[in-house]
């Protein structure tokens, strides 16, 4: 079972995603796959905020900024669920890890394939992604390639997912229903 959750900055998507996976995990072991690379105070604060949000919810955290497939090696055997947060960081990390940016096609294929594998390893996978598509700006070539990669990845994940939820001002709106 796979759920894709999408929303903008400050939309409340993380809080919703966490509560959601807690509600469906019950006794299963819960993993939080963190993709954010921290290089400054602001990133530090952001991570701290997320950590506080998660505290008391009994997550085991796996830091996996690239190469998502390696995350399953860090999990214990048995019934388990995972919350992957988030696709925008993962895509940026994969794209800009080397000296020159990786192409959008390579990044898209790699991420989608690795998520496909991860999805088979857990009973429920919840993925958080970002709506980065509606500011109407034209950025430099690399940023536009990044936005297209994000769009394509979201599209493919939504197709793979059993349900897709958009979070708007903290309110979940089901845009693909598992009962459909």
């Amino acid at each position, binding site marked *: 079972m796979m759920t894709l959750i999408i929303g*903008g900055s*400050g939309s*409340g998507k993380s809080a919703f995603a966490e509560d959601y996976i807690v509600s469906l995990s019950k006794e299963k072991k819960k993993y939080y796959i963190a993709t954010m690379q921290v290089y400054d105070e602001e990133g530090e604060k952001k991570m701290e905020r997320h950590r506080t949000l998660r505290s008391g919810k009994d997550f085991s955290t796996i830091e996996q900024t690239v190469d998502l497939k390696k995350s399953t090696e860090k999990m214990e055997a048995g019934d388990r669920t995972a919350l992957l947060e988030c696709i925008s960081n993962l895509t940026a990390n994969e794209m800009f890890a080397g000296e020159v940016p990786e192409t959008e096609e390579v990044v898209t294929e790699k991420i989608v394939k690795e998520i496909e594998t991860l999805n088979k390893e857990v009973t429920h996978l919840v993925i958080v992604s970002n709506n980065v598509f*509606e500011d109407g*700006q034209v950025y430099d070539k690399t940023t536009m390639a990044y936005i297209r990669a994000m769009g394509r990845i979201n599209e493919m994940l939504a197709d793979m997912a059993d349900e897709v939820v958009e979070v*708007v*001002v*903290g309110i979940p709106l089901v845009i693909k229903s598992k009962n459909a």
Partner: protein
Amino acid sequence: MKLIIGGYAQGKLNYVLEKYGAEASKIFDGEIPENIEEKRGIVVINHFHNWVKMKIAHDGCPEREIFEFVEKYPDCVIISDEVGNGIVPIEAFEREYRERTGRILVELAKKAEEVERVICGIGQKIK
């Protein structure tokens, strides 16, 4: 309190005026009034996100002010753009503005008796 959100130029104010009546409404543009003398009619706060931005720029506390305001005027309508659906800005101030506006809207949505998202002038009730 009612919260109306949506993208830029989606006809949010028109939607509100049609729904609640233009004559009956007192519209404040990017401003939260300190005191409203006239007791009749609905208080409409338009371009709420601009007010948040201005407050942050002046090191104010928009969170405290707006939550106090909605306590005092429980019948108001707040209209705001959704500003978080884009690429994370390079400038720190812009990032803070987007993030804080989003979080304030989440809190207002919790307090609101009704939340509508307006697109192409059409209201979609989401709460």
